[in-house]
């Protein structure tokens, strides 16, 4: 099975999406004969090449981080380039991976509905959408993501054998779907502590920008 992967992260090879994909693809290629090709959508000048890749693909995975509750603009540009292929006979099967910074999966559910509709608009068989919340730290603190990486690996392995996303694994990866009220209250409390702000504040200090962290440059 040959899989074409479109990585829609504006950070490209420097992003978290790439890390999750790596684990998925490691699982995918455990089956002999399975191969993949990666295209980075942040290389916006390659747009024509992306269309051609999609046109010739039998299996596509489109992965991206959530930007303002939807796909990043460069992913939308790619989707718009697919318009001439709508309803074409030989469109590939398509699956999606969406990850975001907030801990809960619910933030991604709205774009998930869009993606499902997109598959039907194109006339592609919809494999599903893999959702991972709390993904921002994968790059910086990979040790904390062991469990998630394992699930991505297993998802890739099963996909490589069956062409399907395992529903139970997808469900597990998406946890927590939402905060329960007690957890939300705890989260609220923790956010007030220095611990949670620390990462941002450390980076601000390193850049000599800490004192300006609350600036309102556009305040008229």
């Amino acid at each position, binding site marked *: 099975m040959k899989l074409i992967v479109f990585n829609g992260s504006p950070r490209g090879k420097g992003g978290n999406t790439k890390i999750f994909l790596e684990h998925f693809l490691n699982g995918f290629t455990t089956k002999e004969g399975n191969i993949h090709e990666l295209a980075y959508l942040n290389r916006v000048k390659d747009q024509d090449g992306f269309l051609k890749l999609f046109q010739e693909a039998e299996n596509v995975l489109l992965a991206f981080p959530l930007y303002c509750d939807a796909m990043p603009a460069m992913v939308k540009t790619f989707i718009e380039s697919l318009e001439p292929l709508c309803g074409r006979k030989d469109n590939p099967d398509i699956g999606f991976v969406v990850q975001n910074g907030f801990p*809960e999966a619910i933030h991604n559910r709205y774009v998930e509905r869009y993606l499902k509709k997109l598959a039907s608009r194109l006339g592609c068989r919809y494999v599903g959408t893999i959702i991972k919340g709390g993904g921002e730290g994968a790059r910086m603190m990979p040790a904390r993501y062991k469990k998630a990486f394992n699930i991505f690996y297993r998802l890739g392995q099963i996909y490589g054998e069956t062409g399907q996303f395992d529903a139970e694994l997808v469900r597990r990866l998406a946890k927590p779907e939402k905060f329960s009220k007690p957890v*939300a209250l705890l989260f609220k409390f923790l956010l007030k502590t220095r611990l949670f702000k620390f990462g941002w504040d450390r980076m601000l200090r390193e850049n000599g920008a800490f004192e300006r962290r609350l600036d309102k440059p556009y305040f008229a």
Partner: protein
Amino acid sequence: MTTHGNRGKRVKITVLNGNPDADNVQFDDYLINLSALLESSNHMVTVLQLREMDIRYCIGCFGCWIKTPGECSNAADGTRDVRREYINSDFVLFASPIIMGFTSALLKKAHDRLIPLLLPYLEADQWEAHHVARYDKYPLIGLLLEKGKDTDEEDIEIISDIYMRDAINFKTSFCFTKLTTDPVEEVVNEINSI
């Protein structure tokens, strides 16, 4: 008092025109009529023609949060005007033809670049994680959409729901979705009733 129900409240409105196609004159004409009518209701209207502006993609560098707080550190492009108009408005209309079931990539480009208007820190809002406000006040938002050939009710619902979610992140309320097949007066009435 005008015939459109304006009770004299003068509102600053910004329209983000996300029509990428200069040949789609109908869409732009709708906005010209809309802004004229809004101005005649005594509102201040700014229409930003995004396709004529230099608007680059957000590259997710976080510079606006950790290097130059509140300002994009990657590109000093036209989005400075977008952010300035946006945050100093009472109401922002996101206007776009529906392309492949969503608002245009052009509009999304500008939208992604609004992120400097928030702080990196998180808070629990409506029992969910969201970013903390950088400014004291954010504009209300609404949607104006032009149906495409293959647009159906579900598409409009999906787009509206995504913008409704976006409103939570941008510390505001989502007011309405209108279509360019609706009379301009209806959009004005919606804005007047805010």
